[in-house]
């Protein structure tokens, strides 16, 4: 389910991507021939069943998953294996779990200064202060450890860490699933604002169709490692979907029916 890809003007072009893990000795095919492309400055959503390979697709783009077939191109060029520092400057990711993605013994200051040191930025001090300000965190959080922050604050630190190296592409894996409604709203507004200010391209995973509808212009529905269908945002509101699975998803989003 890909459609003709005009890879020429796509920011990210994923074609026929397969990812195969080995668990013990047996192969696990987590992603089976998925294709999609994301235009520059677009926000693209991935939704689908739990375990359908959404996180794995994002990890594959970052070189953190064993790609067994297909191709990933960014701005039309294939990526270096393993991913190099130049890649880190362009593509960053926010992980699914804000409790697991910050080092428990590193202060927020260290979390933010490390990428600056790796990429040899000069005005580190100013950039850290600015990064905290950008995600709406008070400067007094700077020297705290992650366990002294709430889930939403941690997620904002993770976003600040991803943005501090000024990437062009931000991959977001369920950025709000661990957050309550009020903080979810803050984080989503923050992401929308930063996308406009920084000219970012987003790929966003969520199991909440309402969040995807709010954030993304187009989306891809996945199931069992395969792409089910690609949709425009408007199709969600109109229920104009072709596959049964997507229809089930839409119905299920309305809540529990006794």
């Amino acid at each position, binding site marked *: 389910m890909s459609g003709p890809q005009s890879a020429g003007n796509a920011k990210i072009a994923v074609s026929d991507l397969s990812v195969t893990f080995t*668990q013990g000795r047996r192969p696990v095919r987590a992603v089976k021939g998925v294709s999609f492309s994301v235009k520059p400055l677009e926000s693209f959503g991935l939704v689908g069943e*739990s375990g359908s390979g959404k996180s794995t697709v994002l990890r594959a783009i970052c070189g953190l998953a064993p790609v067994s077939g297909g191709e990933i191109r960014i701005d039309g060029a294939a990526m270096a294996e393993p991913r190099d520092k130049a890649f880190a400057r362009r593509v960053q990711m926010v992980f699914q779990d804000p409790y697991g993605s910050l080092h428990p013994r590193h202060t927020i200051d260290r979390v933010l200064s490390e990428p600056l040191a790796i990429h040899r930025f000069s005005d580190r001090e100013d950039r850290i202060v600015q990064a905290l300000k950008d995600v709406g965190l008070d400067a007094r959080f700077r020297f705290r450890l992650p366990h002294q922050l709430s889930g939403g604050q941690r997620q904002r630190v993770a976003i600040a860490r991803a943005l501090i190296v000024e990437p062009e592409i931000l991959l977001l894996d369920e950025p709000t699933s661990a957050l309550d409604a009020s903080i979810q709203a803050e984080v989503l507004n923050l992401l929308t604002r930063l996308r406009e200010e920084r000219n970012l391209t987003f790929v966003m995973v969520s199991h909440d169709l309402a969040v995807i509808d709010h954030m993304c212009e187009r989306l891809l529905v996945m199931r069992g490692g395969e792409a089910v269908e690609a949709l425009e945002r408007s199709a969600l509101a109109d229920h104009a979907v072709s596959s049964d699975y997507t229809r089930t998803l839409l119905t*299920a989003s309305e*809540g529990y029916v006794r």
Partner: protein
Amino acid sequence: MTDEPLLEVENLRVRFETSRGVTEAVRGVSFQVGRERVGIVGESGSGKSMTGRSILRLIRPPGVATADRLMFSGIDLQALSERRMRAMRGRRIAMVMQDPKYSLNPVMRIGSQLVEALKVHERISKSKARERALQMLADVQIRDPERVLSAYPHELSGGMGQRVMIAMMLIPSPDLLIADEPTSALDVTVQLEVLRILDGLVKDRGMGLIFISHDLRLVSTFCDRVLVMYLGKIVEEIDASRLQDAEHPYTRGLLECLPAIGGSHEPLKVLKRDEAWA
């Protein structure tokens, strides 16, 4: 079935007294749970998890939990010895922790962890236990239970880990299940299946369920009653079906910041917190 509630909590408090000062995570919470589905919602850090944990007496030092009354089907939980409490935890009250990946042993296969949990509760042969484990995983909609049995926790997706935890907690068929954000990483269809299982247990076996969540839409459709917590207090208790017309400004605020399919794509409303709510 008697009218007597399964769990009675009166004036529950949880304090953290550290050298860095005192934090009151839960400040005088009272509620009752019968053989029904009670939801607890509230923002991050409002004390939902601490409330759940203190029922099982699982607050770790420096935290201290106190209550005027903490009765579970006629048993005073506060008076139980640590040994009897442990038996209670295993068999009659179970809790699905918020962070599945941290609650699972990272260097042990899922299968061994499930089999071990089964063998604690019943005398059962290894092959029987394995069969049961497979069935339990299938029940929580895991598509490839054979593989998941031989997987390590890091080899599972976020949602799979969560379902493994749920399966594990249902092994002893508890009378009361405290589920702390059990479905936050699940996609909507699987979420509904898992809720159906929980619902079945409440209806058929008369289990009590405390369902901690931040998903208001889900809680309003799934639960019977909802407790809304804010800064360690219950600010509102309301029938789930009437959550849409909640009165407390905090509950209203929470409802208003939800995005909706086909909604406007303007920035979402954010909650304006008011000192007076505390």
